[in-house]
Each structure stands twice: as C-alpha cells, then as structure tokens.
C-alpha cells in the first residue's frame, strides 16, 4: 500500500522541469501523477512514476537532489463529500497531513497524500473501508 514517490528539489530556473521530464521520458519511465510545490526561490516536484528506483538512480546521475518518499493513494468516488470523509477520519485520529494532490479518471478520484505516520494512516483508512491503491497499480496506471 505504500507508494514510493519521487521528490525532486528544483531551483526556480527556466528549463529545469523540462529537463527532468525529458530525462525520465528518454529512460522510458512513465509519469502517473505529478505535483509542484514552490516558493519564490525553489520548488519541489513530487512525482509518481512507473519505476521509482530506476528514476531515482537516473536523476541522481544527472545531479538532481532527489529522494523517495512514502505516500498513500486513496481511491474514492468522483463525487462531492468523498474526500471530506477520509480527511475527517484522519483529523479525528489526529494524524496530520503534510501535503496531498489529486487527479480523477472518469468515475474515480485518486488522492495521493503524505501524512506524519503512513502506517497508521493505512491502518485507519482500511479499517474504515476506504479503498487504497496498491503501489503497482498506481505505477502502471
């Protein structure tokens, strides 16, 4: 259930993101989900890819500051209130969310999140019948 997400440090300078996606593309690595968090000085690219270990290796070779972060991916109905329910559960258990990002395909919504305690998060959500995506399912989506 634990998803290995790539986190890459990028300075805010032109062309760096293009370079990053180009490197992954050339290596035949597919990106499933991507989000960018940035400040005026730098940004962090968070990306789920088809082969995290290989991507990590390649990006290191290209002098990116990169590491793997454990995240989970929730799957809910693509309708109002579904996400709110999951968040309420976490909040009730006082598990804080570091960040999250989401995408949807047709009827389904997928929410990738990093929390302060990934194992407790998984346990809690499963107990409450919230569907979690397996790592392989997400990598190969």
């Amino acid at each position, binding site marked *: 259930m634990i998803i290995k997400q790539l*986190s890459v*440090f*990028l*300075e805010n300078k032109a062309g*760096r993101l293009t370079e990053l996606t180009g490197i992954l593309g050339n290596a035949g690595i597919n990106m499933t989900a991507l989000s960018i*968090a*940035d*400040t005026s*000085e*730098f940004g*962090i690219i*968070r990306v789920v890819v088809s082969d995290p270990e290989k991507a990590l290796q390649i990006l*290191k070779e290209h*002098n*990116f*500051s*990169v*590491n793997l*972060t454990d995240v989970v991916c929730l799957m809910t109905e693509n309708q109002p209130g579904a996400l709110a329910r999951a968040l309420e559960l976490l909040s009730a258990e006082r598990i804080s969310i*570091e*960040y999250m990002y989401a995408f949807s395909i047709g009827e389904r919504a997928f929410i990738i999140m*990093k929390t302060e305690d990934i194992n407790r998060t998984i346990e809690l959500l499963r107990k409450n019948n919230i569907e979690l995506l397996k790592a392989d399912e997400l990598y190969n989506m």
Partner: protein
Amino acid sequence: MIWNEKFETMPREEMRKWQGEKLREMVERVYYNVPFYRKKLQEINIQPEDIEGIDDLARLPFTSKTDLRDNYPYGLFAVPMSEIIRIHASSGTTGKPTVVGYTRRDIALWSEVVARILTSAGVERDDYIHVAYGYGLFTGGLGIHYGSEKVGATVIPISAGNTKKQLQLMEDLGSTVLACTPSYALYLAETIEELNIDRNRLKLRVGIFGAEPWSDSMRKKVEERLNIKAIDIYGLSEIIGPGVASECEYQDGLHINEDHFIPEIIDPETLEVLPPGERGELVFTTVTKEGLPLLRYRTGDLSRLVYEKCRCGRTLVRMEKCLGRSDDMLIIRGVNVFPSQIESVLLEMGETEPHYRLIVDRENNLDVLEVQVEVGDQFFSDEIRKLEQLTNKIRKNIESTLGIGVKVKLVEPKTFERCEGKTTRVIDRRKLD
C-alpha cells in the same frame, strides 16, 4: 621524525643570530642587484652595512603584490636570467600574473623545505605520494614533487583532473599520502562515496592540503570521510611555493621554516610590527633565496605567531592557521567577512553540503550578501516547510557568526564547479560597476 634537526630545533638566540647574518647578506644582494630595492633603501638612508642584526628588519621597506606587478615580469629578480632555471607564476584575479624565478640553489632550497614539511606530516621514504596538485606554472605540483623525491618517497605525479581514474590508480598503486587542495580532497571523498568504493581498499593515511584557506571543521570532515590525518600546509609562490610552513603531527599551528623565511606580524593599517601573539597581517622576508629575494613581503594573510616550543620538539615559530587571504576577505557593510567563516557554519550544522557560493551585490547603496548552499540528497526534505526552516536556520547561524544580515538560497547539488585548483567561492558584483 625531524628532517633537519639543526635548524628545526635551533635555540631561539641562535636562530636570531642566523637570521640577522642572512638578512645582512640579503640586503647587500638586493641593494646591488635590484634597482627597485636600491632606490627604496636609499630613500630611507639605509646602507647594507647598517644591518647589524635581526632587530633591524623593522626598519626595512615593505614589498607588496603591486610592486611585483609593476615590475612584471623579471624586474625584481636579483640574478642575471642565465642563472634562473625555473619560472612559476600565479594567476592574478585581476590583471597580470605574478612571475617568480628560481636559481639552481633556490630549487635545492625549495626541495629542502618541502622535505621538512613532508617529514613533519609523517611522510617517510616508504610512502607513495599521490600528488594531485596541478603541475605547471602553479607551484603546488612541482613543489611537492621535488620535496617528495628529496625525502625518497615514491612520487605519483598524477596532477589534477580525471577523478575516477585518479581513484583507480590510488587503489592500484597503493597511494598512502594525498597532496592536493582541501576542496579537491572533499570532492575525492564525495566521489568515493558516489562510486561506492570500499575505503578499505585504499591505503591513504595522511593528506597534505594547502593552497586555499580552509577551516578546522572542514578538516574534521575531510579526516572523517577519507579516514586520514589532514595536515595543513602554507605557502605562496612569491615566497617559494609550498614549503613556507606546515603543521606537525600535533596539528597545533604551522611551523615556519624561519631560517629561510622570516615572519613578522604587522598591523595592516599602521604597518607597525605587533608583539608576539597578536593577530595581524603576515609578512615574510626571504633571506636565502637568490632568484627573487623579497624584503618584508606583505602576504595579506591574517595570522599570529606562537613562539613557545612545540610538543614535537621543533623550536621553529608557529603561525596560526590562516582564516583567509585578505584578497578573500570581503568588507560588507563595514564588516570583515571571510568565506571560511561561512564554511565553518555549514560544516558545523551538517545539514547541507559544505559547498557554497557568496554573491555580494549592492542594492540601493547597501551591500547585500547572498549565500547559496547546495542541498544534498541526504538532507533534502520534500516538505516546503522544512526546507524553509532549514534556510532560516542557516541564515540565523551565519548572521550570528558574521554579525550582518544575509540572504540564504538553497541550490541544486553540483551547482558549483569542483576544481582541482582554487575554487571560486565569491562573486563580488560590486566591483563590476
């Protein structure tokens, strides 16, 4: 081990007597052979025979880097060019390089002083010395090379560049001593880690590092990561190159080969000689050199002198590890800033790579200092908040060390070029206007 017992353990009074005699001979040589010095000495009414002892040194005129440039290339040489068998030069950051020349005896003298510093670092004839200083006009490579041969060690003149091949040869040839700049040593350590080379396959035990200022915390880092003893050496081409001074095994100040290079500490403003123990600008007089003898050469380096006898048995005066050359010193909003102070802060924090660059600029008539620091994989958090906390922590630590406000910017790894020579750590845009 001590290479030259006679001079390295000479009692102070005897040393002063020797220095006085050599000084008088030197003043005679420059008076008759170097028009620049004759003029300067005549201006203050000094004849060579007026020099009666070492105490007369303080009466003599100074020499500056500008004097060398003004007399470019051979104007200050004290022998005919037919006596010069070697030229070296140091690249100036501005304008012309500084050219230095050596007679056959100067080269022998150079080998002698480098043999001394190698011996004080613990190098013996059974050692394999990996000389990764650049060979060429830079004095680092050839200077260490000749001294190593004098000691009788096996020299591996690998010079600079091609790091992977260097590491391969270091392993295959069984190098025990590494001679290079401290920043290149750190780069080698990083490369060893990146390539997952088993440190136990390398036989390195000691490093001879110089040619750029480095802090004690950087020393710790190099010692830990390479698992060696890191010895600081000091030298500048104007005086001779490497071999002016070096630490002994106790790493408690650098013994100056003062029978050849007489040190003084002066107040850089008043030019008065300061009492022993006080910190000021380091000045050298090269009393035995033939090709380019310099009277009271102002190095621009800040240090202090310690005359107490060292635990190693040497009586040679020790100079404190240099904080930096005054060329490196930045004056920002009236405060003196050395790049090595920032390096120390980063190394002590241990939360970023010790690679940084300082950008000084002037905005609205106010100096601004930006410190750019490389983020390493091991320290990189993927949370904005934590990176911002890190940035703030670095900023606060630097500000409390320097006493001025700075801006800190995190940059990607390997942003700053690693080079074998001197690393450019400062970009001063104020000078461009």
